[in-house]
Every structure is written in C-alpha cells, then in structure tokens.
C-alpha cells in the first residue's frame, strides 16, 4: 500500500460557547470573548458555584436540523449528538459533500467523547433503583447515542466506526486515528472529531476532584485555580490529498503527524515530568517528518489546573524552542472534554491560516514557575510558519499530539 503523502482537511465544523459556527470561532480568535457563567437553569439544576461555558439552549443549526430529520422522526438524539450534528453539517458543506456524494464512498467515522457514551439519565436510574419500571426511552436514547454510529445513521453511510473514549484526549486521538485510516487506504474519507455536552454528573465529578475554578479559568496564569467545564463539537473531514484534488476541493490544511503515549503513572494526575506527553510530541513530530524549530504555534491543553499546566510546560520546554508561541484556548471555550482536542485542532488551523495568534485568554500574568513561557492574554503574535501542534492530556494518563499545517 502506497502511503499518501498528506492527509488533507477539506471541511471543518465547530460549535462551542465561544461561537455557533466556524466563522464565529475565527472571529473570536481576532476579538476574544468569554461566555463563562453560572450553570443556566435550562441545562441542569445545581447548588454548586462553579461556572461553565454553555452553548446555546438549542444548539442545532438549520442544516443540522435537516440532517437530524433525515434520520427519522422517532429518534430523540442526545444533546451531544445534536452538537455533533451541527459541526458535521458545517464540515460537510465546507467539503462540498452531501448524503448523495457520500453514498458511493467508503466513509469512516471516528469520534471522541466522554459524556456522550455514558448512560447518565438520573431520572431513569432513580426510578429503576426505587423498584419502578420507567419508560425505556432513555435506554433507547443511550443505545442510539454512540457518536460514530449516530453519524453513520445521520448520513446513511456504512464503514469503519469507532468512538474514542480516551477522556479529555479523545478528540485529538480521533483525528489522529482518522489520519491513520486515510493513510492506510482504509477509507475514502473519514469524519473525525469530538463532541460532548455539559452534564450534572461530570460537573459534580470535577467539583469532587477539586479541579474547578470559581471564576473564569486562567490557563498558565500564576494565580490559576482550575478549569471550567464547557461543551461543544468539532469535526473535520479528512481525505487523501489525491482524492481532494480529484474532487476539485482545495484543502484547508493537513494533518501532518500524530503521536500518542501513556504516562503509566496516575489515574487522574499527569506525570510530573510529562513523560507521556513528551513521547507523544516526539512521535507526532517524527510522524510529520518535521523539526521542532518548524513549529510556529502550539495550542496547548492548558486546562488551568496547576498540575496540568506545569506538566505541559515541562514537556514543551524539553521539546521545542522557547520562542515558540504557546497558547491555550480554553479561556474562550471552557474544557469541552471529549470535544476539546477536535475544537482546538480546528482553532489551531484557523490561527495558522491567519498567520497570527491571540494570547491566552485568562492568563494575565504568566506563572514564572513555568519553564516554558506561554503567550499571555494581552499579547498577539505573528506566526513564523504554517505548522502547529495541538495537544491533549487526559485522565488515565493518555496523551496525544497532532501536527497540523494550514493551507497556503
């Protein structure tokens, strides 16, 4: 099998609290905004004070509504699936693809999520626990909510399908896996990304771990206290450069390299020297055939927890020139868990395409203890190239890095 030279990104779709679509996210990179607020009553009830980044109450775009309708009126998709549908519809339109065009192609779907694959229906569970026989609709919703299967259902396609559940690295790993599938000739195109909704369960879980900040998060700041949860979806359309050319579609960029590695260290905390992330970065750069000095931008995981940001900075200091611009975009989106890696890969490509990056929203004064200086909020930086890295760390010690290149 001849390995294609490049895996092209021919479509992108994105929704988060920052914006409902790709154009909105591009605008936010120019004029950063923070939509961080207490948990809205329409989302779920809580007595806890930790703010979140919530998308719109109805996150479904008109194009996504058409997609969802095509899957049947008896389907009541989860909020995670509806977020994914919005990003999917946008990505397909940008890639000049529709259901008819997909029908004749080998389509792979690989999506990352955390909340989206969990049976979190409290009302059903409590009724069952009390000896009741609750209506089975929540069970049906859970079983029809596997993101990869749901995307195939929305499009009427069939092919390889996987939901990556590598916790907060899932979105990055999904894009990396999609790249592998295209490079191996396994699919004509791959729909890859991640989606996750805000849930009361995850919200309380992160609160119980004392990882949340009572105010807007401050990635890499000396006063950072923790993360804010968010929700959203990011989806990219991947295909070989040859196929994109044959279809007459101009690539938006390329996924040049992917690396993943385990910390083999702790259930929730990163390795203090970021052992796994360093391995992942080395592998991604080698996979891309790229030297560290060629990297013009790093979109870090940057959750704003003290341990994460320190570990990341140590890995970057060991891998890249200290002059490389490093930012976190979670100050604009919150931590969208399984969607984070995908949304951040898209933001990375957008910034690389602009040739400029905004600073790290929430980082007023960079932590002087960090061995790698991040770009603070007040700064903007021109980018010296079109190659960048988007990286993710996760519970379970999973680490993933993507080397991305924006089209000229």
């Amino acid at each position, binding site marked *: 099998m001849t390995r294609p030279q490049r895996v092209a990104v021919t479509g992108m779709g994105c929704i988060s609290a920052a914006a409902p679509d790709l154009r909105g996210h591009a605008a936010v990179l120019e004029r950063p905004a923070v939509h961080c607020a207490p948990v809205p009553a329409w989302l779920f009830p809580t007595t806890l004070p930790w703010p979140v980044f919530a998308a719109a109450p109805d996150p479904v775009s008109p194009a996504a509504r058409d997609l969802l309708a095509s899957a049947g009126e008896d389907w009541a998709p989860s909020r995670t699936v509806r977020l994914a549908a919005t990003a999917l519809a946008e990505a397909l339109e940008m890639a000049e693809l529709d259901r008819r065009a997909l029908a004749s192609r080998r389509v792979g779907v690989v999506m990352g999520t955390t909340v989206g*694959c969990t049976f979190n229906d409290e009302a059903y569970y409590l009724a069952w626990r009390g000896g009741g026989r609750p209506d089975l609709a929540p069970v049906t919703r859970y079983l029809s909510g596997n993101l990869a299967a749901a995307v195939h259902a929305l499009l009427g396609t069939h092919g390889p399908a996987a939901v990556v559940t590598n916790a907060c690295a899932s979105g990055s790993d999904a894009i990396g896996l999609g790249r592998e599938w295209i490079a191996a000739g396994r699919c004509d195109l791959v729909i890859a990304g991640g989606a996750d909704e805000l849930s009361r369960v995850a919200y309380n879980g992160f609160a119980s771990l004392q990882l949340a900040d009572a105010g807007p998060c401050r990635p890499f700041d000396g006063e950072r206290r923790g993360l804010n949860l968010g929700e959203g979806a990011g989806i990219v359309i991947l295909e070989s450069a040859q196929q994109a050319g044959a279809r007459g579609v101009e690539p938006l960029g390329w996924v040049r390299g992917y690396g993943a*590695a385990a910390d*083999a260290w702790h259930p929730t905390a990163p390795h203090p020297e970021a052992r796994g992330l360093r391995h992942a970065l080395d592998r991604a750069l080698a996979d891309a055939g790229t030297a560290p000095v060629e990297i013009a931008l790093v979109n870090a995981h940057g959750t704003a927890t003290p341990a994460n940001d320190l570990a990341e900075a140590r890995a970057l200091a060991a891998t890249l020139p200290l002059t490389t611009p490093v930012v976190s975009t979670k100050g604009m989106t919150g931590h969208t868990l399984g969607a984070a890696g995908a949304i951040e890969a898209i933001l990375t490509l957008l910034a690389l395409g602009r040739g400029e990056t905004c600073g790290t929203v929430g980082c007023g004064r960079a932590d002087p203890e960090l061995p790698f200086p991040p770009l603070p909020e007040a700064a903007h930086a021109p980018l010296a190239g079109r190659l960048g890295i988007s990286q993710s760390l996760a519970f379970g010690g999973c680490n993933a890095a993507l080397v991305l290149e924006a089209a000229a």
Partner: protein
Amino acid sequence: MSAAVAVSAAEMIVGGDCPPLPATLARALRRADDLTILAITAAHAALQRAPQRPVAPAARGLFVGMVHGPIETNFRYLDSLVDDGEGQSSPTLFSHSVHNAVAGYVARLFDCQGPSLTVTTFTWPFLIALDEARRAIATGRAERALAIAVETSCPVLEEARRRTAAGDGEPWLPAAVAWVLEAVAEGEASGPILTEIEVSEAPCHPQALLTRSGETRSGPLLDATDQQPLGVALALTRALGRVGEIAPGALRWGLAAPGAQATLAIDTRPGRRGDR
C-alpha cells in the same frame, strides 16, 4: 502496513472464575472497580503466557474495547451524587467512571508507555481494539500490544432487556479477554499471524443492540453461544485456543449483526515470517 503481527497469547476470564493476582497487583487494585480488576486479571494471565522477552516500555501499546464499559461504576457514582449530595460525591468513583480508567490501570501496572487507546462501540469494540493494536505494530508504533475487551454485568440494562420483546436470553456475565500481539521477528512467529481484520458498521435499531439478537458467526471452531456484549471476543478467544485441533492453514471467521459485518483472518502455518 509492513511487518507481520502474531498473537502470542490470548486469555479470558469469565464470571467469577477469577484466579488470584500477585500481591503487588492486588495491592495496587485496592480502590479499583470490578471492571478494572477483570481487565488486569486477564492482561496479567496473557502476559504471563506470552514469550518473556524485553520490550521497552515506550514500545508497549495498549488497546481496549468496551461496549458499556464502566456503566456500573457510573451508577455507583450516581448513587454517591444522589445520596451524599452535591459537593460530597465520591472523587474515586468519578475517576473510575471514565472509560479509559481501565487503560490507565493497565498502563501503570504493566508499564505500557506506548500508544494507549480505548474505543467504544455497541457491536464489537474488541475487533476495533485488535485492529488498531495490529496496525500500531505493523507501522512500527509499538513492538508489543495488549488488546483487551472487558465488561461487567449491568442489572439496569438487564432489566431493560427483559422488558423488550426478545429479552429472555442468558444473563450477561462479567468477563474480560486479553490478547498479546507481537511484531514477527527474524525468526518464527510466536503464534498465529493476524492477516486481516475488517469491521464495518451501519445504522441499526437500538433494541437489537440491547438483545444482541440476530448476531451470527461463521468459520472453523467458532461457537455460536454467548449472545452478550463480550460474546464475540470470548468466542474468538476460545477458537484461537483450539486452532491446534485442526490442520495448520489460513482461517477466516465471519461475523454479522444488525448494522455490522466483520471478518477476522489468521494464518497458523508454522515458519511464517517477513512482510505481509
């Protein structure tokens, strides 16, 4: 892909048939849930059976497939949230309710610092994990890889299944499967060579995923029992353990279910080596 990939060991644990673990592992599992203990037990057994050869930690990959994963731990976390109240829920249960918590334990206890991937589908996630493990070795991202599938029983879904039209099947058993995959070295392969894995999914009705009805299997040595989430992984592991009963050669297994089709092929002829 270039390098050939062999299955050097395959083990499974079903129900309460869980052999004791060495004290060092047992101690590290004090807080672990049943799902993790099952997976560790199967992985330990498989690694004990595999050829003992040095493999650098960074060259050890880990690929885990789950249908429902830590669903029972998630319900226990819900118990904690409801009974103890907001702000008082158990951080330990929450951290174990994440699907890749199992992979985190396996990586730590067996020092697997290579690629780590947990995947979830409602049909045959073990085949996805196995295929990704094979690809990781074939493309040089790992020299050895563990492919694991693990499920616990789930009374909530069992009760839902009983209320459906086809809900009178055998109860789901807690079980785990672990295969050790190796790059074929200059010498002879240490087990059957994986020559093909293909999995394709299409939309299907959710009820079929609950009842596991309509699932069929074909090919030598592959039994048709175990209509439960881990059924295919268990059947393949049993079949792999019996390949010595038939003449060496190429074996092909076919799987079909509502919304999915898969093929897995191996070559058991001795003396195979080199590229595929």
